[in-house]
């Protein structure tokens, strides 16, 4: 039986605010899932807490809506014991980067086979509008009436610094772009980190207007592996790497236009690209920044179990209890 998007809908009423970017992401995910060819029972969505974290209730797969920030840890236990499953984590900017920051970086460095989708709305949605670890310096919110004092995280730079093997960015309303990124993430063995720009019309409307409403492509910088990085309404702008590794904007016709290489051994290129932002260079890269192979935690663990069993035979309980120095009393 081939599945359709409808098969992935649940009977639960979706309870995000009207116009919330989460709807678009859910729809994109439901229409993408059948393409994966994985049975519904073999897919699991695990989330933490937040508006974004309600996601699993709406996916007709196995799912767990857990506690704030801990989804990567819970998913690690699941993925490590069940390599046969396709495990997805859905998290928010507060969930992943504030309370759960520690679990996120460790899941990434271990390269556990989980796909982590961070719905970044640069605000705490569920708790009604306090600033988040991705809110810009000086942001005025309910908890920062005179402006936030926190310098924000760049989620992609953080993930690359945490040794992530797959790092990408998508935009809630860009269904085609998001689907391509999800496809690449699903194909990647190991942990995949995807930041999805998500609009929260209630508490942080238009935080990403520069790319969401970017009809003529003036601000989106599409990353295509093996192709020169150019953008602009007529493709006139390009990125170029300076000798110190940093990136500058140049004319697409100039020499030395950077050719994207997501599989580059060094993380330096991906990191430099992650520093290209609307604020810094007037453009925002979207797509797959980095996609490299590294041994996967779950596989390594399974291998150790297999090696130990091959060497010592399958564990025998009676022999185990009787190991060490024993003596008999008659």
């Amino acid at each position, binding site marked *: 039986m081939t599945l359709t998007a409808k098969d992935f809908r649940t009977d639960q009423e979706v309870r995000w605010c009207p116009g919330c970017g989460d709807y678009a992401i859910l729809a994109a995910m439901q229409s993408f899932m059948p393409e994966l060819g994985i049975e519904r*029972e073999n897919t699991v969505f695990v989330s933490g807490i937040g508006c974004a974290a309600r996601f699993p209730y709406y996916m007709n797969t196995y799912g767990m809506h857990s506690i704030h920030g801990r989804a990567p840890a*819970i998913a690690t*236990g699941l993925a490590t*014991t069940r390599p*046969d499953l396709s495990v997805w984590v859905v998290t928010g900017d507060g969930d992943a980067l504030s309370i759960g920051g520690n*679990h996120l970086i460790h899941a990434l460095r271990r390269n556990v086979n989980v796909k982590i989708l961070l719905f970044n709305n640069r605000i705490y949605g569920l708790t009604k509008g306090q600033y988040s670890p991705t809110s810009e310096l000086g942001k005025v919110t309910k908890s920062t009436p005179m402006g936030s004092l926190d310098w924000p995280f760049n989620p992609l730079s953080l993930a690359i610094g945490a040794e992530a093997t797959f790092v990408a960015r998508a935009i809630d309303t860009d269904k085609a772009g998001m689907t391509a990124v999800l496809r690449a993430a699903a194909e990647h063995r190991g942990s995949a980190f995807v930041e999805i720009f998500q609009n929260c019309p209630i508490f942080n409307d238009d935080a990403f207007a520069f790319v969401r409403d970017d009809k003529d492509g003036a601000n989106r910088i599409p990353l295509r592996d093996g192709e020169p990085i150019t953008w602009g309404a007529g493709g006139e702008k390009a990125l170029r790497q300076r000798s110190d590794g940093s990136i500058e904007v140049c004319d697409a016709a100039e020499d030395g236009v950077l050719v994207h290489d997501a599989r580059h051994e060094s993380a330096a290129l991906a990191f430099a690209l992650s520093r290209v932002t609307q604020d810094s260079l007037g453009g925002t890269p979207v797509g797959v920044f980095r996609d490299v192979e590294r041994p996967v935690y779950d596989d390594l663990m399974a291998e150790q179990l297999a090696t130990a069993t091959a060497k010592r035979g399958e564990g025998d*309980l009676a022999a185990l209890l009787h190991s060490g*120095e*024993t003596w008999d009393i008659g």
Partner: protein
Amino acid sequence: MAKPVEQLSQVIVRFAGDSGDGMQLTGSQFTSETALLGNDISTFPDFPAEIRAPAGSLPGVSGFQVHFADFDILTPGDAPNVLVAMNPAALKTNIKDLPKGGTLIVNSDAFNDRNLQKAGYAASPLEDGSLDEFQLHSVPLTSLTVGALKGIDGVTPREAERSKNMFALGLMSWLYGRSIDPTIEFLESKFAKRPEIAEANVKALQAGYAFGETTETFAVTYEVKPAKLEPGTYRNITGNQALSLGLVAAAKLAKLPLFLGAYPITPASAILEELAGYKNFGVRTFQAEDEIAAAGAAVGAAFGGSLGVTTSAGPGVVLKAETIGLAIMLELPLVICDIQRAGPATGMPTKPEQGDLLMVLFGRNSESPVPVVAARSPSDCFDAAIEACRLALKYRTPVYLLSDAYLANGSEPWLLPDVGTLPDISTRLATKPNDGDQFLPYLRDEQTLARPWAVPGTPGLEHRIGGLEKADRTGNVSYDPDNHDLMTRLRAQKVAGIAGDIPELEVDDPSGDARILVLGWGGTYGPIAAACRRVRQNGRAVAHAHLRHLNPFPRNTGEVLRRYDKVLVPEMNLGQLLKLVRAEFLVDAVGYNRVRGLPLRAAEVARAIEALADQ
């Protein structure tokens, strides 16, 4: 010429020295030699948390006490009969425990000005007559060892000196007629890669043994006959080893893979390390980034159909509270092992306490009942672990398993169980819809009130669970007031119902005349049982009941408590079980409470029993 042999019924030896003196190894090897003679044994290592406190200092003293006897014993003993002190600091910190007339063996070489000063002695106690009330044997252990090792190639003078603990062990082995062969075998395998070090240690051991035979300071040797223990095969085991084996056994008995999430912490780390060696049993160990992740990963593994376990001590367990609340809501099996240590905060990491009882019962938000099982002795950690897993799996609930630093590191002979007699704790995973063609994840088993465990990968049973309140039966998110009231009561009833599935509280009262009951729980079993024996030997009747289950209590607990005129509750805390029994059963029980970071002493508990009886 062989020296005369004197018969003893029991002996308590304490080895004490600097952390770098190898006292733990010395003590455990003496224990192995003793076990093979068929004595009953109980050991208690007592060491500082610092890996290498400054050499010769008082906080750097490490001790290992071995109690062995020709009858079944219950504790490592209140006070030693024999103290081996390797330096002045060890003498200073331990001499107050040695009764008058006790045997004292000191390494006289270590009593130099510097070491005396570090230990706070103005004059050498070996010379000022202050040790006259003991049978003092001043032995130059260091120089004798160095002398014996002259001429072994590749052994530095420093390495030679470090073998003095083996000299001391050789001497003690001679004194109590233990064979040193098992230790020789042990040394040869431990130092297989450095044969010269093996040789040095073996030579030192043999020299110590020979020294006993020839020296005039020891006129007699002692013999302790084998104890009459239940027939069978035994091994010496610590609580942490037994707990680890219990978890492996439980997973086998449940036919589920074992997953352990843990973050290193004293005194629980040994369980993580032990289980990491059982990969051929399908055991997965995950050293997490913190205790929260350790518990979370265990919940994730449980969702996927593993036996999920997380181990820690107080400071780590407190971090797991929110995750345990999640497991209560998810109604998934999870075992949380708390190897209690003295607190609060970092407290005294290597020292035991029973201070976490109220935390594990109540240290979570809202109405969040968790069954609690406590081990009573090192070897009992095996059975307690299986029991905790049984309850978790059968009732789909997190279960606390309590041990402590004393049980964790202490050891005793363990009569190995016949694997065939261990309980079948296998549990059924859901495989098909349970309500027509629908699957209701919160439709309960009528008897246990447990919900079905449907693991990912099972077609047709896809469902979502989470920390938001669940609607009865469907498990959908629900804010309905009456549903929350119902679910809160169902979760409580499910745990309370376990009382019907655990043994009644047994009372040990040989004469049947007791009017006073001593109620204990967990790791105080040995001292309390030994205290009751003493009281009875003094001609009085006393009853002892010991709780394995702290939540729910055995169904006859109230009835047992009310049978007696007086109830004494000894604990290594300020009265936590006491509060519970007073609140739950309206019994005017009295506490006996000590929080010294040491096991209770049988003698003090006996005095407390007699004092209460006299009131």
